[in-house]
C-alpha cells in the first residue's frame, strides 16, 4: 500500500514537472511582457511596476486587427473548399468502386510526407506567373492543393468503413449517386468532417513558410507569418516582442481551451491515420 502510494506520488510529480516544462515558455513570455518596453528582463521575475500598456502598444504596432482579419479570411478561403473537395474524392475513392481509383489514391498518399520546402520554389514562380504574389490567394490556392493528400486520405478512411447496406437501400429507392452522397453519407460523416475542418484550420492559421515566401505584407498573411515579421522588426525589444507574441497566440489558445476535447481527438486521430 505504502509503496503504491509513493509510486503514485512519483507519477504525479513527474507529470507536473512535464506540464511545468510545457508551460514554462508561456509563463516566461508573460512575465517579460510586463517589463518596461526596451529593457532586458532577467529570467522569470515579476516586475516592480507591471506595464500592462505593453499589450496595447503591441496591438497597435503589430496591426493586430488587420492581421486577425487577414488570417480569418485565409482560413475561410481554404478550409470549406478543402473539406468539400476532399470529401467528394474520399467518398468516390472509399465507397464507389472506381476503376483506377487505387492509382489515384496512391498518388494522393505519396503527397502525405511531402515537406513544403520541396515545392516552395516552383510555387513562387507559379504564383508570380498567375500575378497573385502578395495577395491572400497566394496562400489560399496552394494550401488547398497541399492539404489534399491528408484530406483525401482522412475522408477515404471514413467512407471505407461506412455501411454499404445503406447505399444499396438508397439505390433501391432510386437515389442518384449525388443524392446518395449528400442525403445519406455526408450527414453520417459529420464527426470526421468536423475533425478535418479543425485540423486544417489550425494548420492554415499556423502556416509560416507560404506566408513568408509568397506574401511580403504581414496584413495579407497568416498569424504565424505576421508573428515572424513582428519578430524581425521587434526582435531586440523583449517585452514588446513577448506582449505581441502572446496577443497573436491568444485567439488560438482560447479556441483550443474551449474546444480542447475536439482538438485533442482530432489531432490524435489525425496523426494516427496520417
Amino acid at each position, binding site marked *: 500500500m505504502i509503496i503504491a502510494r509513493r509510486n*503514485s506520488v512519483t507519477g504525479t510529480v513527474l507529470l507536473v514537472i512535464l*506540464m511545468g516544462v510545457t508551460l514554462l515558455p508561456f509563463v516566461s513570455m508573460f512575465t517579460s511582457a510586463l517589463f518596461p518596453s526596451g529593457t532586458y528582463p532577467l529570467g522569470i521575475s515579476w516586475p516592480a511596476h507591471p506595464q500592462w500598456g505593453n499589450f496595447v502598444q503591441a496591438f497597435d504596432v503589430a496591426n493586430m486587427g488587420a492581421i486577425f482579419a487577414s488570417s480569418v479570411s485565409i482560413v475561410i478561403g481554404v478550409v470549406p473548399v478543402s473539406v468539400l473537395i476532399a470529401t467528394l474524392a474520399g467518398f468516390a475513392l472509399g465507397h464507389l468502386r472506381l476503376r483506377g481509383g487505387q492509382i489515384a489514391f496512391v498518388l494522393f498518399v505519396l503527397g502525405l510526407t511531402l515537406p513544403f520546402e520541396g515545392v516552395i520554389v516552383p*510555387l513562387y514562380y507559379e504564383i508570380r506567373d498567375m500575378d497573385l504574389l502578395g495577395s491572400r490567394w497566394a496562400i489560399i490556392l496552394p494550401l488547398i492543393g497541399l492539404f*489534399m493528400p491528408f484530406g483525401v486520405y482522412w475522408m477515404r478512411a471514413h467512407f471505407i468503413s461506412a455501411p454499404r447496406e445503406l447505399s444499396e437501400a438508397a439505390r433501391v429507392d432510386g437515389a442518384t449517386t449525388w443524392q446518395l452522397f449528400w442525403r445519406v453519407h455526408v450527414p453520417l460523416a459529420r464527426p470526421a468532417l468536423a475533425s478535418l475542418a479543425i485540423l486544417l484550420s489550425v494548420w492554415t492559421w499556423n502556416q509560416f513558410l507560404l506566408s513568408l515566401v509568397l506574401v511580403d505584407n504581414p496584413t495579407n498573411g497568416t498569424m504565424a507569418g505576421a*508573428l515572424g515579421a513582428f519578430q524581425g522588426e521587434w526582435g531586440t525589444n523583449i517585452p514588446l516582442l513577448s506582449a505581441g507574441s502572446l496577443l497573436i497566440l491568444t485567439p488560438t489558445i482560447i479556441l483550443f481551451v474551449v474546444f480542447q476535447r475536439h482538438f485533442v481527438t482530432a489531432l490524435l486521430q489525425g496523426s494516427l491515420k496520417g
Partner: protein
Amino acid sequence: MTSAISPVRSIGESHLTAAPRALTKRRARGAQLRGWLFVIPALVAYAAFVLWPIFQTFRYSFYNWDGVDPAQWAGAQNYKTVFSNEQLIGVIGHAFELILFFSGIPVVLGLAVATVMRRFVTGRMSTVARTVLFLPQVVPLVAAGIAWSWMLSTTGVVDEVLSKVGLGSLAQSWLGGFNTALPAVGVIGAWVLLGLCTVLLYAGMTKVDPALYESAQLDGAGPFREFLAITLPALRQEVAVCVTVTVIAALSAFDIVYISTQGGPGDATMVPGLEIYQLAFYNRQVGLASALALVLMVLVIGCILPVQWFARRGAEQ
C-alpha cells in the same frame, strides 16, 4: 439501377435480357464516369499546386538559373554539388542530427511518462495533462521559436535556473555557441513534439487489456519486464506513428530554425529547408536549391518507408 430494370424483367424475361444487359453496361460506365467527377476537383487542386511543382522542381534541378535570365542546362551538376560540397553535406547531416532530438527525446521520454501516467494517474488529472501537453501542437512553431530563443539567451530562464542550482559556470548563450546551437534547436523541437507523443502513447496504452498486466504481475514480472513484454509490443503502431511524425518534422524543420538562429552561428544550425529557401531567394541559385529540394523529398520518403513497413509487418503478425 436495379429498381429501374426489374419491372421490365418481370414482364417478359426471356426475350428482353439482351437489352437490359447493354443498358446495365452503359449505366455502369456512366456510374464510373460520375464517380470520377467526384475525384476531379481534388485531383485538379493537387495536380496544380503539388504534382506540377514537384515536376518543376525536378526540371529546375537540371539547370543553372538565377530566376531572371534564361536558364542554362547543367546536367547532373547540381546533384554532384549537393553530394560533394562540404557545406551542403553538413546541412543534410544537421537534419539527421535533429532526428536524435526531435524523435529520440519525445519517443523515449514519452514512453516513460506515459507508462507512469497509465499506472498512477487517474481521471481528471489525465484530462488536464492531455490539454496542457497538447498546447505546443496548437501554437505556431514560430511562437515556440520566439519563446525559446528568449529562454535560451544569456538573460533567459535556462541560465537563471542553472546558476540557481550552482551550475552557473555552464550558463551561456545556447543558441549562439557553435557547439550548443544545434542541440538547443533540437531541444525546442523536442519540446514541441514531446506532448504529442506522450498523449499518443498514453492513448495506446489505455487500449491494452488490463488482464494482461494482471497476469504478468501474478507471474511476478516487475514494472520493467511488464513494459518490455506487454506495453512495447502492443504499442508498435503508436510508436511507428510517433517516429513517422517526428522524423518528418526533423528532416523538414524550417520555422523553428528560421526564427531562433537563421541557420547560424556560421552554418552550425543550417538545415535543408532553410538552405533551399536561402539558395533560391537570396543566392539566386534556383537549380541548386531545386536539386537539394528533391534530395530532401527522397530522404523523407526513404526514412519513412522502413518505419511504415516495420509497423505493417508487426500488425500482420
